[in-house]
């Protein structure tokens, strides 16, 4: 479903990704862990198409298409979804208007009929119930004045509405208490399926107790330093990230 080859990228003057290779097949959940500054968020931004990140070498193929050629909105319509680490507050634009515009943009692209106000309301109510979000958030401006947990739930709500084929969760657990974490994780787990790929980016192992990955990769200094199964996350929890720097790079690749 997604194939990343020798990806190099920079933000501003700094080269942050220095050659990432990663293949994600349908049905797989991959976790990316790593210390701060290792390039985790840059990777998610490259995949979602953030204009401030510049790809300098390498390729990303998604369902046989060159993902890097697509505009952010085209990627979203093709089923790529990024749950933001810091969801943006947008005063003056109501959540309901935004969600409906978003859902209908995807539906148009898929050749499906757009939802009218009533159908949309029915759909969004159902999805909101699943993420335990009060309906009043529909009438609020996008993320404006939302707590950290409410913002993250709003992200998961959007994901549930758009039903992406490939979802990236960037630090979905940051700033969440255990209840909110469970709600977010449940939302993600509901979407898991044979046709869907997921990339879960996290600093801590905690989230991976709730969203159990098939593969874990450790990112350090812009490269994947080591990969393994879900047990790698536990090892990292015990040993921290310090040991990565001491082991020779060649031995870690795998």
């Amino acid at each position, binding site marked *: 479903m997604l194939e990343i080859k020798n990806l190099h990228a920079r933000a501003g003057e700094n080269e942050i990704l220095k050659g990432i290779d990663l293949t994600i097949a349908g049905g797989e959940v991959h976790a990316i862990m790593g210390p701060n500054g290792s390039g985790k968020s840059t990777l998610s931004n490259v995949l979602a198409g953030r204009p401030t990140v510049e790809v300098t070498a390498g390729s990303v193929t998604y369902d046989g298409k060159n993902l890097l050629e697509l505009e952010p909105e085209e990627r*979203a319509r093709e089923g790529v979804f990024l749950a933001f680490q810091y*969801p943006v507050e947008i005063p003056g634009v109501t959540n309901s208007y935004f969600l409906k515009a978003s859902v209908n943009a995807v539906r148009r692209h898929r050749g499906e009929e757009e939802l009218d106000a009533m159908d949309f309301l029915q759909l969004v109510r159902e999805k909101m119930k699943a993420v335990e979000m009060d309906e009043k958030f529909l009438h609020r401006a996008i993320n404006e004045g939302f707590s950290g947990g409410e913002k993250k739930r709003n992200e998961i709500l959007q994901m549930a509405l758009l039903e992406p084929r490939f979802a990236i969760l960037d630090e979905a657990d940051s700033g969440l208490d255990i209840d909110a974490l469970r709600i977010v994780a449940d939302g993600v787990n509901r979407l898991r399926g044979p046709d869907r790929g997921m990339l879960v980016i996290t600093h801590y192992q905690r989230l991976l107790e709730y969203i159990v990955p098939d593969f874990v990769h450790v990112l350090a200094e812009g490269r994947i330093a080591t990969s393994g199964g879900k047990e790698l996350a536990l090892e990292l929890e015990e040993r921290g990230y310090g040991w990565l720097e001491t082991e020779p790079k060649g031995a870690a690749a795998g």
Partner: protein
Amino acid sequence: MSALSEASEHLLGLHEPVMARGDGALAALRQTGRDHFAALGLPHPQLEEWRYTNLAPLAKERFTLPARRAVSRADLEAVACPVFACSLCVFIDGIYDPALSALGAGADLHVESLAALSASELAQSAAGLDTLVDGKLHPFAALNTALLEDAAIVRAPRGTRTAEPLHVVFVSTGAGEVRSPRLFIVAEDDSQVRVIQDHVSLGGESGLTNAVTEVRVGSNAEVDCITLQRDTADGFLVSNLAAQVERSGRFGSSVLTFGGRLVRNDLSVVLAGEGAEARMNGLFVGGGKRLIDNHTLVDHAVPHCTSHELYKGLLGGQSRGVFRGRVLVRPGAQKTWAEQSNPNLLLSRNAEIDTKPQLEIHADDVKCSHGSAIGQLHEEALFYLRSRAIDEHEARGLLTRGFAREVLDALPVEALREGLEATLEASLGEAAQDE
């Protein structure tokens, strides 16, 4: 003779035919206006108050007095609907039209046409008219008085509270004409009233609309005055709004500008009694080559008064905006709380805004703040929307509308918030065109 003084002479010349139309009771008032305008003439850009707004394009025009075309109810509904209130009061080119008006829903509120008043009624109902806007300082206000034929006189008697707002519609009908809309609001002590003054046009897209509004807010009274400049046209729009607020009174003004080739609004509020409060909101949306200039003044004359001001500008194309917000805290006006903010959004490289807060503080125990900002659309927000499948064009539109909505959502008449949607859309559409 300069172009400005030639144009001033021409405008002065329009005074005679208005005098010849009669209305003896108003003659003295008009004469005062004429004399003030004759002394001042049209302002030139060397004056600090007019530095950014050159009236040369206006000076090229030779406006005529309104010929006054008949307006049908259907015509009116096409431009002034929805009617945002129970009571509707319609003026065609500055003259009251009883057939199109529907007064009486708010039984406590007195709404009268100045022209219909006898000399003795004039002395009573319109007492204080033309005392708040200083014609010796404001040439356009003086010109309005010089050409005055009618006015809406709105009086909320002591202790009355009118639940529904009053919708006063000023229609302009003829090209190249000068209209002099006039509104006088008196809220007696402990009363409350909301007035929407709605400037629209039916064939009066060009010409000069020169409006004057005066508002007296009595002790513990509340007035909200919403000014809609919706004549989305190529005309010159000038307005002077002056309010005086007595002890514990509250005055709210919202000025929303959606059109006009050259727009100049002067708003001045005097907080004259302790505990008085002013809220001054504004939104101006410009595209093409429009120039929209807002000059505001809040005068904290006594202690313990509060003012909050928010003017938002949204400019595209080659349009220009001007904002000057003067806050005057007079000696002894302690415990003043004055806030001012003027965020602006530029949608094109060629749009421009000159923004200048001007705080003159002559007391030491005060809380005053101001902020102005000029920005483009928030890139982070744009990316967020696009990452949710919304295309760039639509995302820009959403963010732009969101920026404008803050002022709309704060309007004290709920029906207006949605009711102005189409007007806002049309203006934003024009502002988004990059020419």
